[in-house]
Structures are given as structure tokens and as C-alpha cells.
């Protein structure tokens, strides 16, 4: 369940970029070092909101009265299932709406990209007084609808299919923990509606080469059975791509980079076993060809236990239980 907390924490990322944004990021649902217990399904709705007024046109930071404040809302259904305590499957299905407060451009809405992750914990061992663990994750995302990609900053996604690999390490000492992960995301080329387009040169084709992406995520804080509170830093880079030209238009293959700082929290409600609330907020420190987004997200999760005899309905984290 904690994992969900963390799942949420990525959402900010997704949303931040959403404006001038890589949908891919949304696929990165899990960056925490928690595993669901075998045969447990943790599932629930989430809501995320992000907005920006300033953005980076290449490296030039500016605002734009013809956009005003660009905001994105995301309504998602997320879940994690414990195949075993060492192998989890995660999914996310978001519906996204966009809006510009000024200017004349029409907002967009629609079902965006479905993402699925497989998370495996190959190693968990005592190290010093704490617990050290390693995780590997693989995930993909696919657009669920034919939404328009080349309508930035108001398109709801980029239409690229993605494949990601992630390596994550975690160390927990008492109730304090730190987690670090690195992710490489392969992005498929996309096809745009126009017959030719300009990036750093004219392309006489509708096919667009989408550069891959890399992400670093570091998080640290307090973690107990009841409560998680953490600070998160995320740095996301596009490995290639071009800048938006001065007073030019954004394009899906832009070099979208972002550094973000945020906080997350999760609370397991005592009164109802298996029910938890999560929330987070974040701020964009620096970026390139993205909006300087701030945002928040909220979610409610509930654990469904599919084991015949549920020994411990709230024991959704193997790490947690092993720590105990």
C-alpha cells in the first residue's frame, strides 16, 4: 500500500510534464521500495492537478498571455497486485483534461495511456542495523485513444508507446529510509497529422523520432506501518530532442527536461483495515521545454485480500512485516 503512496508520487511528475509533457512519465507508477503481500490487490481512484504559468522555451523562461495558466487534471484508477511477496504487478489508467485560462485555444480531454509495471525484489538483507533491498522493474505504456499529440501544450499526451527498465535500491534504518532509482525509457516513434514539420530542420514525413528518456528519483523520510512521510527529488531528462524556438510552437519530440521537489504522505486509517489515504505536492525547480508546474494529488486505496485465509489484512508490505 505504501507503494501506492509512492505511485502517487510519480504522478506529480507526470502531470508536471503534462503541459508540455511526456506522457511517458505517467507510466512510471512505482518508485517505492515496498512490496504488496501475496494475493493482495490494492486499488483505488486518484486525482491529480497541476498548473503552470511560466515555462521554458528552450532555456528561456517566460510566460504567455495567450495561454495564461495552463492546468491539467488527471483522474486515474491505480492498483498493485502481489503475485508473490517478491513480485508485484502495478497498473494505472488515467483520464486527463487540459485547459488554458487565457487565449483562444480549445482544451483537450480523454483517456490517456495505460501503463503496467512488473516489480521484482531479488534481494533483501540485513546490512548493519538496517535492511537493504534491491528492486528491478520493467514497464510499458500504450495510448488508449487516438488523442492528438501535436497540440502542445494542451494535448493530453504524446502518443508514444514506451518500455521502461528501472533499478532501485532502498535502505531502511528503524523508521527512516532512503530510496534511489534510475529509469531508462524507450519511446516509440509517433505519427502526427501534418505531412511535414520542422524541428531543427524540415522533415518531409509524418513520422516523428521520439528520443528516449532517463530519470533519477531520490526519496527519503519516515516509514512506519501506519504512516509514511517523505521528500522526493526527481530529475527527468530527454536523451535528445530539440528546443522550442523563440516564440515558436512546442512539439512532441522536444527536449523536455525537468527537476522537481515534492513531499508525499500516506496514512493507513485505523478504523477500517486496508483503507488508506495518500497525498502529495510538488514544485518544479528547473526545466527545459516544459511548464514550471506545481501540483498536488490525492488518492484513496483499499486492499482486497484474495488469500483463502487472510492472516493479516493490514500487512500489505512485506518489507514492513519483515522489519517487524
Amino acid at each position, binding site marked *: 500500500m505504501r507503494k501506492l503512496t509512492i505511485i502517487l508520487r510519480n504522478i506529480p511528475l507526470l502531470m508536471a510534464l503534462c503541459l508540455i509533457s511526456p506522457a511517458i512519465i505517467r507510466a512510471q507508477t512505482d518508485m517505492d521500495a515496498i512490496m504488496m503481500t501475496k494475493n493482495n490487490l490494492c486499488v483505488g481512484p486518484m486525482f491529480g492537478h497541476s498548473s503552470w504559468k511560466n515555462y521554458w522555451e528552450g532555456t528561456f523562461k517566460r510566460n504567455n498571455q*495567450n495561454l495564461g495558466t495552463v492546468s491539467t487534471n488527471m483522474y486515474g484508477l491505480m492498483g498493485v497486485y502481489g503475485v508473490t511477496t517478491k513480485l508485484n504487478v502495478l497498473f494505472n489508467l488515467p483520464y486527463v483534461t487540459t485547459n488554458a485560462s487565457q487565449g483562444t*485555444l480549445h482544451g483537450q480531454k480523454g483517456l490517456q495511456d495505460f501503463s503496467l509495471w512488473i516489480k*521484482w525484489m531479488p534481494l533483501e538483507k540485513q546490512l548493519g542495523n538496517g535492511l537493504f533491498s534491491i528492486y528491478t522493474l520493467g514497464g510499458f505504456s500504450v495510448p488508449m485513444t487516438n488523442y492528438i499529440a501535436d497540440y502542445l501544450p494542451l494535448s493530453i499526451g504524446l502518443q508514444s508507446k514506451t518500455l521502461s*527498465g528501472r533499478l532501485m535500491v532502498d535502505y531502511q534504518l528503524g523508521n527512516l529510509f532512503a530510496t534511489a532509482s534510475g529509469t531508462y525509457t*524507450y519511446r516509440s516513434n509517433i505519427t502526427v497529422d501534418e505531412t511535414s514539420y520542422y524541428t531543427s530542420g524540415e522533415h518531409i514525413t509524418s513520422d516523428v523520432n521520439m528520443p528516449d528518456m532517463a530519470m533519477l528519483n531520490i526519496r527519503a523520510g519516515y516509514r512506519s506501518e501506519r504512516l509514511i512521510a517523505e521528500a522526493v527529488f526527481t530529475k527527468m531528462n530527454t536523451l535528445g530532442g530539440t528546443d522550442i524556438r523563440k516564440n515558436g510552437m512546442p512539439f512532441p519530440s522536444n527536449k523536455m527536461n525537468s527537476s522537481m521537489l515534492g513531499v508525499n504522505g500516506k496514512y493507513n486509517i485505523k478504523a477500517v483495515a486496508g483503507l488508506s489515504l495518500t497525498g502529495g505536492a510538488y514544485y518544479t525547480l528547473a526545466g527545459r521545454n516544459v511548464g514550471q508546474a506545481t501540483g498536488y494529488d490525492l488518492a484513496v486505496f483499499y486492499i482486497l485480500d484474495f488469500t483463502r485465509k487472510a492472516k493479516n489484512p493490514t500487512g500489505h508490505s512485506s518489507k514492513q512485516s519483515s522489519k517487524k
Partner: protein
Amino acid sequence: MNRKIISFAVSGLVLIVIGLSCKKSISDRTASAPALNPSNQDLGAGNWRTVLLSRPDTFAVAAPAATNTPGYLADLNEIKGYQKNLSSGDQERIQYWNAGGVLRWNEIMRGLVAKYNLPPYQNPDGTYPIPSSANPFAYPLFPFANPPYAARAYAYVSAAQYDALVACWHYKQLYNRPRPYAVDSTIQVKGVKTTLPSYPSEAAVLAGVTAEMMKLLFPDEIANIQQLAQQQELAAIESGAAARSDISAGEALGRQVAQQFIARGRTDRAGAAVGNPAIWAGFVTQTQATGQIPWSSLELPARPPMLPLFGKVLPFLFDTNTVVTLRPGPPPSTSSDEMKSQTQQVYNYVKNPSRDNMGVVQYWADGVGTYTPSGHWDDIAAEDFIPRNFSEVRWARNMALLNMALMDAGIVCWNTKYFYFNPRPTQMNPAIKTLTGIPNFPSYISGHSTFSGAAATILGHLIPERAGVYNTLAQQASMSRVIGGIHYPIDCSTGLVVGQNVGNYAIQRATSDGAEQ
């Protein structure tokens, strides 16, 4: 056991990621266009009617040296030297230019227009700087290649290329010098063997005339274009199709012909098309005096209207008086029920747009950072011309007819826009949210429709079997502006008709230029 399976799965996924990342190259549709292989060399094209040149031999080209002279033999040795050591880069450049100089220069032009089609960023006080041809490298870069500017640029380059090639063909027929590979059989043919005379080189004529035109149109790009011109000439030599002396004579001829077009361009009134604050204000008061709501910029901060005096630019296919006669009657009064109805229709289209409509709007958007509607029609035309095996001179003639029609359509359209100074739908009803940026100039009549009507008309004449397709495309381009929320239906239906009328002037020229006998 379980663990093994999982680790296999994970490492498999990693391998897929790595593997897929290597297969993402994309290529232009015309990248491997075949070498030009004309079904008819148009040997008589030296007699075709030129645009500005009074005669095909206005500029003298000296008779070439005989092919048995030491100078020419040195030319052959130069070719042999290149052909001994052609790198893969050389081969690629040869293959690239073999597809046709008119095609490649048109593609390069489209890229330049897209590169320079960026509206200037505002000053801190909310005014806008204006690009200056006197200081082209300072921001805002000169030019702002907006749709009227672009239409004019394509037309000047195409028309100059056409006149230069007519002169070239005149001298080819006059001097009848064989190709290097026809003189010396040890010279390889890197491309298609042709019986078209070699002197002066058609590749060099195109390189020279185009490079020279850039001095007027894209002064920031002179250096880059010069390099491309040299590559085209070198490719012609390396391919065995031209001797150095063919090249020298061709480039000089091309540059001389360009001078006539540059002189015209400097006095065609385009330089004054930006207007000034008094002129901009004048449109408002004149429109108010007629009882109509005047157009106002929907950009923030408000931007002066785009090239308001472009409607006074000197056309290619008719005179300035004809521009006025081609101008349509007025749009519905801004206070009329008809205008309310037109506005409501736009609102209804754009309120809940379908994905199909969004795609059509985007396909035809041709807005900021693109090659503009004229470039889009050049793109359509070029890809239709490729399989038709035109000679280089016929390519130039067809492109010139198309682009002169597009420029003149732009002139009549702009003349109309600033005569009526009619507001955009969103100005009449701010609830109209658009699917593409609202162009910063008056609504009536639609530029896309006028451009497209003209282009479809002349292209339908040049390739009759595609006339229906062009007409459908023009209708779609026109309609895209209504379903995109930026034009009233009447702007578009009227624009199409006006465009067709302009296109008919291009047909008149086409049927009397000597190329269709």
C-alpha cells in the same frame, strides 16, 4: 524456479528496450526519389515564354570551347579524378541532386520558410519589434516568413528558376555540347544518361539563380545556401553529367537572371507592406466609418496586423488594377442576422470537436513554424511531379505557375482582408475556442481557401487526371478553417472562388507559354 523465470523475464525486457532503441530512424518521403529521367527533354524550351526576361538570350553566354581543346580535356580529367575516389557522402549527394534541382531547391526553400516563420517576441512594453532586412541577424531575425512573405518568396525563386532554365535551354540547343560521358567513354554515368546538351549546366544555372535570390529573400542564409549550391555543382561534375566549364557558364547565367528578379523584388512594394502605426489605426477608423465592427488582434499583447499592405504588392499574372476587380463583394454586415448565423455555425462546429476534425485542422494548420499554405501546396505538387518524369525546365515551369498563382492569390486575399477589415469569429463570440492559433489578420476572406483554390485550379490544369483530387483537397483545406473555429463559412466559400479566379490566370499563361504545344 520461479525466481529464474522472473529474472529471465526482466532481463528479456531490458534487452527489448535496448534492441528497440536502435531502430528509430525516420526518413523523408522524397529522400530516395529516383534520378530525373524525363520522358521528353523539352529541347525547344528555349522558346517558351519567360516571366521577366525579354528574350532568352538577354544575357549572353559565350560559345563553349571545343571538346578536343586542352581546357576541356582538363575538365574531363577533373571528373575522372573525382570519380576515382567518391566517398559514400559524395554518392549520397549525387543521388540527392539527381532527383532534380527544382525539387531539391523547393524542399530547401520550404525548410527556410518553416525556420523563419516565427512571429517576433514582444518588447517589455508590449509592443513588437519588426525584422529589418538592413540588420537581418539581429533579433527578430529577418525575415518573418509568414504566409504572404512565403508565397512571394516561393514565387520569386520559382519564376527566376524558370526564366533561367529557359535561357539555359536556349543555349543548350544553340551550342549543343555533348555530356562529358558522351565525349569520353571512360567517364562513368552516375545517374541517368541523357542526350540533353551539357552547356550551360542546368544544375549550375539552378544553383546560381537560387543562391542569388537568397540575397533578397533570406539574407541570413546566404552562406548556407552558397554551400548547398556548391554541393549541387560538385555533384553534377562528379556524376559525369557536367564539365567545370558547363558549370561556370551555368552559374554565371543563373546569377544574371536572378538580378532581374531581385530588381523587381526591391520595387514590388513588399518592402512597405508592414505599414506603420498611422496606417494600422486608419483601418480601424475607416471600418468604423462604414458602421462595421473593425478587426482587432486577439493576440496578447495585441499585435499589429500582418503585412496590411501586402494587397498592394505587384502581382505576376495580372496588373494591380485587376487585383481590385478580383476582390469579392463585402461580407455580411457585422450587425446582421446573417453574421450572427455565421458565427453560430462556427461555434457549433468547434464546441465539441471530433478527433477527425482535429486531424483535418492540424493537417492544414500550416501555422507558426511551418512552411505555410503555399509550402503545403508545393509539397503536394512536388510529390505528384516526381513520378511524372518532367524535364528540369518543365518542373521549373510548373512550379513557377503554381507559385505565381499562390502569390497572386495572397495579394488578392490580403487586399480583400484589409479592404473589409472584418473581425474573426472569436472576436464576435469569445466562447469560440479554436483548434489552432488564430492568424493575426482580418477574417474575410480565408487565406487558406484563396491559396488552395488557386493552387488546385492550376494543378488540375497541369495534371488533369488529378484535378478531382486537388479540388477535394482545396475544399478540405478551406473547410478546415471553419471547423477549426477561425473562419466563417462565407470567408471560405468566397475565398475558394477568388482563388479559382486567380488560378484561371495561371491557366491562361500556361496555355500560351509555348510549353503545351
